[in-house]
């Protein structure tokens, strides 16, 4: 899919680490930090970035386990109250990463977990977008994953545009590319 190749969010999603069990040894690569020589033994458990784990899984060299961000503790927290769980500190690309992992991992409940968490949080976010002021918004914004932040920003933008249209504000603006004053390093 050509549009995902250049997509930066996709690239960063695939940088997330996943624990992996090697079925075949690999020589000459320093992936395993606990090995003395620069090779990986068969049966070694290593944390690999997802893009590598995925490719090796396709070639049947490894098997992927669930990463820590989808473990039992997170599941319990989501079951308790999904809206307040701090997903960004666990994994900033929670949903995308889960979607990519789901066909590879032998855990059927991952998809259900993702969809329930997303539904509850989405409803919560939408209500907050329309009612929250800037101060209260800054309290829960750090808890959102990147995808949720994008949705939130889009909803916020459309709401401000609507308000501007109602009241008839200025229609010309400076080009947003020039918008941010960069700190000169």
């Amino acid at each position, binding site marked *: 899919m050509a549009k995902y*190749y*250049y*997509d*930066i*969010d996709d*690239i*960063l999603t695939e*940088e997330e680490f996943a624990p992996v069990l090697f079925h*075949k*040894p*690999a*020589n*000459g*690569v*320093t*992936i395993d930090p606990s090995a003395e020589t*620069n*090779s990986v033994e068969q049966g070694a458990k290593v944390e690999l970035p997802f*893009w*590598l784990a995925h*490719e*090796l899984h396709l*070639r049947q*060299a490894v098997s992927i386990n669930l990463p820590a961000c989808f473990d039992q503790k997170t599941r319990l927290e989501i079951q308790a109250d999904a809206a307040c769980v701090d997903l960004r500190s666990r994994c900033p690309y929670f949903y995308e990463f889960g979607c990519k992992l789901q066909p590879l991992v032998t855990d059927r409940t991952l998809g259900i977990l993702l969809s329930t968490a997303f539904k509850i949080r989405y409803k919560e976010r939408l209500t907050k977008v329309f009612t929250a002021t800037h101060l209260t918004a800054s309290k829960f914004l750090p808890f959102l994953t990147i995808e949720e932040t994008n949705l939130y920003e889009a909803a916020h933008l459309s709401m401000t545009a609507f308000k501007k249209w109602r009241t008839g504000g*200025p*229609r*010309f*603006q*400076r*080009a*947003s*590319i*020039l918008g*941010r*004053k*960069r700190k*000169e*390093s």
Partner: protein
Amino acid sequence: KLIAAARAVPRVNKKRRDRIGHVREKKILRAGRRATPNLSIASSLTRLSKNATRITISSRKWNKKGWMYSNRNADHYGALVHHLSLIRNKRCLMAYVHNRADIVRDLAWRVGLELLDLPPEIQDKLTTLEKEYFKNHSVAIKSYMGKVGIELNVDMVPPKDPYIKIRVVGEIDQGIVISDKTTNFTRHSMHFLKRTDAEPYIARVTSFTCCPSPKTNKLIRPL
């Protein structure tokens, strides 16, 4: 060939470090900022793609002799990991260059078609190749607009009425020619201009610097 593959392997470590560095730059790019272009990235991109093909062809040829599962030994997987890292680096670099090209194209549409109209801090951050790209893109846009007969980059927002009132906030060079008359944009003067004339100046509003230089500020605030 085994020795050649083994010698190529120490590059894996270096590539891993490079890869992480590049990913950080992606994060910077994501924030919509203009990172200072690393010229070595563009050149390393071409080098990488050549290296990737050369090394993997040499190592794969060696592995291909017995293309059966029993022959896929540890070296094969080591070479595979190396190959995948190279491909990954290539993808990161290409995505970086592609996104920068998107931003440069966007600049041409939003801000202006002349390279010198861009504020100097942005001009510093473009590589020579990107400036060439900008010039070629604006030449293409101009020729298209000439053939079609309308100026396309004037109104990004659909207009309500053809004339707007503006007030000049900064200092502009004297004697600017606006379609039918010459206007003096002295500071704090108000004008009633045609929308098409005023839009390029509004789009080019520079940010408020602490010591504004009198020659290049073009600040107009529409009312």
